[in-house]
């Protein structure tokens, strides 16, 4: 039975089955406790989860005896799947750029993250500018095109950045690994960072007023009006003021965090998440009062001067102050084991297993405003699920299968069984190339191909 199922999985990946039942699993729902039971999936959604479920006729069964099922992991801060540079670092306000335009659905990091149990990621612009580019959450639907990755219906975001990165002279142009640098540009201090953000919102307010006036005239039935010029730089900031776009702000130090919260209050918008927020524990009350979420690293610190005051207890301390906290990766490798990143908060700060698991599931879902769709195992939610062979909070746990929208997008057995064939295919191409190479210099290139496939 099991073998047959795997055969099917191997044949069509990702597999779309109308009805799937995951049976005999340790189900960690995150929001509704942990139990030994089953999950019924139909048309990409969870329809039932419990100790005893009604198994629909003709359902595909996945036997998960002695295995663990958790909701798909959500990474609130990632830079994978981006083509042609993570930063538009040439200007202090780069809100005209949009990650949506440069999604690369063939970035292998997607598959690797998927194999680490991640099903949703918030794809952010880099931190080169006080106000960076527009961002969006994606589902790691490996094999789909760029449009197929987009988390449909999710509120888009915009990246802000405070501190060293936006004020450093000569930010890397076009992201990491780039060889050219841009000239120094304003701002060069933390004061300047604040000024850039305030100036941008002054402009955005005037821009919004202009459009509001135009829209009102249109609503009154006035005709032959010329609309204001659409400005792609100010449009997203207008959306922030209207609450239609989330602000995800890169920050480290307590002082700059307070600065940003004050600026947001002054202009009447909310900071949706503080990203990294390594000194969040110092100003947790203020963060909680503002209603901002916090997305942090488990235990990275001292890698630069503004990270010297970071402590691994940050996560737990902020959780205990009532902040919605998530643990993120900001890195394609770290992204592959966010389960154990979350588990560190059990050691540092004594969170319960469920609280720790929340850091990479329901909490980031809340931060991204998609908790009605993902983040826990509940009827009605998307069937984004990860099956581990051992307790996912353990270093020894390995991802066995990952489902998104009820389709299997990663299967460990399938992956392993295909490796030999892939390696052979690769070797064959290398050999073929080697054989054709000596002829390249001489006359009559391509003679080798003539017999086999001419016309």
């Amino acid at each position, binding site marked *: 039975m099991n073998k047959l199922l795997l055969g099917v999985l191997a044949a069509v990946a990702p597999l779309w089955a109308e009805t799937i039942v995951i049976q005999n699993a340790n189900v960690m729902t995150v929001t509704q406790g942990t139990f030994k039971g089953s999950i019924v999936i139909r048309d990409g959604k969870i329809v039932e989860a419990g100790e005893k479920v009604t198994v629909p006729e003709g359902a595909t069964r996945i036997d998960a005896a002695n295995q663990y099922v958790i909701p798909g992991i959500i990474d609130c801060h990632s830079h994978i799947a981006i083509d*042609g540079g993570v930063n538009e670092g040439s*200007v202090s306000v780069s809100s005209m*750029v*949009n990650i949506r335009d440069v999604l690369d659905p063939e970035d292998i990091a997607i598959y690797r993250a998927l194999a680490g149990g991640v099903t949703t990621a918030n794809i952010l612009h880099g931190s080169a500018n006080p106000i960076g580019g527009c961002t969006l959450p994606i589902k790691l639907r490996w094999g789909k095109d*760029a449009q197929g990755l987009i988390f449909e219906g999710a509120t888009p975001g915009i990246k802000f950045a405070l501190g060293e990165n936006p004020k450093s002279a000569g930010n890397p*142009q076009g992201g990491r690994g780039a060889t050219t640098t841009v000239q120094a540009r304003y701002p060069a201090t933390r004061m300047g960072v604040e000024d850039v953000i305030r100036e941008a919102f002054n402009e955005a307010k005037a821009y919004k007023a202009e459009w509001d006036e135009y829209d009102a005239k249109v609503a009154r039935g006035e005709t032959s009006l010329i609309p204001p*010029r659409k400005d*792609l730089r100010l449009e997203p900031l207008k959306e922030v003021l209207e609450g239609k776009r989330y602000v995800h702000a890169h920050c480290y130090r307590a002082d700059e965090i307070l600065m940003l919260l004050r600026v947001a209050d002054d202009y009447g918008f909310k900071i949706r998440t503080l990203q990294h927020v390594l000194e969040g524990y110092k100003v947790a009350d203020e963060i909680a009062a503002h209603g901002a979420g916090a997305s942090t690293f488990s235990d990275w610190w001292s890698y630069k001067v503004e990270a010297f005051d970071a402590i691994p207890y940050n996560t737990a301390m902020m959780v205990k102050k009532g902040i919605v906290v998530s643990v993120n990766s900001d890195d394609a490798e770290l992204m592959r084991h966010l389960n154990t990143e979350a588990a560190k908060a059990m050691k540092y700060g004594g969170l319960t297993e469920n609280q720790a698991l929340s850091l990479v599931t329901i909490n980031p879902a809340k931060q991204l405003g998609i908790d009605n769709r993902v983040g826990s195992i509940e009827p009605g939610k998307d069937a984004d699920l990860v099956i581990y062979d051992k307790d996912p909070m353990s270093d020894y746990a390995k991802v066995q299968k990952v489902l998104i929208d009820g389709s299997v997008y990663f299967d460990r057995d399938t992956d392993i069984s295909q490796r030999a064939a892939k390696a052979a295919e690769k070797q064959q191409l290398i050999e073929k190339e080697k054989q054709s190479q000596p002829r390249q210099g001489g006359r009559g290139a391509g003679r080798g191909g003539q017999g086999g496939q001419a016309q």
Partner: protein
Amino acid sequence: MTRKLITGLLFVCASAGAQSSPAVAIVNAKIVRVSGPALARGTVVVRNGLIEAVGENVAVPADAWVVAGEGLTVYPGLIDPLSTVGIEGAPNAAATAGRGGRGAATPATPAAPAAAPAAAVERARGPEDRPSTTSWLLAADELQPTDRRIETVRSAGYTTTATFPTRGIFAGQGSLIDLSSGEKAGDMVVVTALGQYISLSRGGGFGGGFPSALMGMIAYVRQIYLDAAHYQLVKDAYAKDPRGMERPAYDRALEGVLASKRILFPANRLVEIDRMLRFAAELKQPVVIYGGRETYRPEAVEVLKKAGAPVLVSMRWPEAPRDPNPEDTDSLRVLEQRDKAPGAPALLEKAGVHFALYTDGLEQPRDIQRAVKKAIDAGLSREDAVRALTLSPAEIYGVADRMGSIDKGKIANLLVTKGEIFDDRTSIQMIFVDGRKYTPATDSTGGGRGMTTNPPGGIQ
């Protein structure tokens, strides 16, 4: 009486222009018309730069200089649908969007500033500074008949190039030129404005600043089209009733964009093809994709077909690096690219996607012959290969009514070979451009590298 006079006048004008009044007749040659079945034994008559007659039973005019065509084959002159020939010192057109092939994309830096447009701002602070933009340029205005590459590519059988300015993001509009030599630049121009060449790499000489990343370039292109639409709106309103209205400022960058009836977008990988097709649809612009390295992938063929967009496929097939680091092994994806890319034309043909082949900087006859042969060896029929180098490019630019095939009334751009085109042993006997006969220059390099300017990004 009047009529006779006019005809006479026209004749004088025409002969003054083309300087070739006597007819040329190639008789008893194999004629590959492309627009119809080949004639095993036929005659082509050329006069005043045009094809006067073609067929199996065509009377040879008494004044004709006769070419004995036994053993010769006549093809329409080849058309390079994306070229920089005629603009001296211009870099080769290249599809360098994002990461193509191996390593980072190398932006095509110009070899010489000969064709450098007016200096742009030193460091663009945003779209308002119109960075890397010379959209108002017309290749026809930049032509230099002294470009030595004209003779080089003509010797490979090319009679026509769609020559584009290629520096910057909005580089300007291409023009269709006939590769005659020693004429005034204006005599070479067949069509002045073919469309806007857009690249997603910054050309040199534009200073730093915005945009620096791919997403910045895309945002910039989007903003330009929004601005152009708004500009048009304001201009129209002002033209209608200027009283009491602030005068709109003249913006040559937007004028150039508005004057372009189609855009050329770079895309090599499937991801890029999908991205740029969607983007063109969003901008509501007729698009021609150039690059097309991964058009061997069924998904790429599918999206192109769905969009109904033509694609110009680079004949600079991806190759293994010459001195690879032995420690480095290429990924399966890169190996597959190299293996399958030359097979793309055959697949595109089969799927009915409108495509044409462009030289992408290959200039030497032998390199071009080899590149086409590679596509033929990978499944493209010889007929379809000829079509992809003649009638298809003409159709893509809407000029099939005047060139691309051997038909009466079309421009007399012909290629006469001994042996079948693209064979190793085939030799080009003569080339007719606008009815003027040229003989190929000898291949000076003896094969191998033919590059005189920078190679396009990520391929070699």
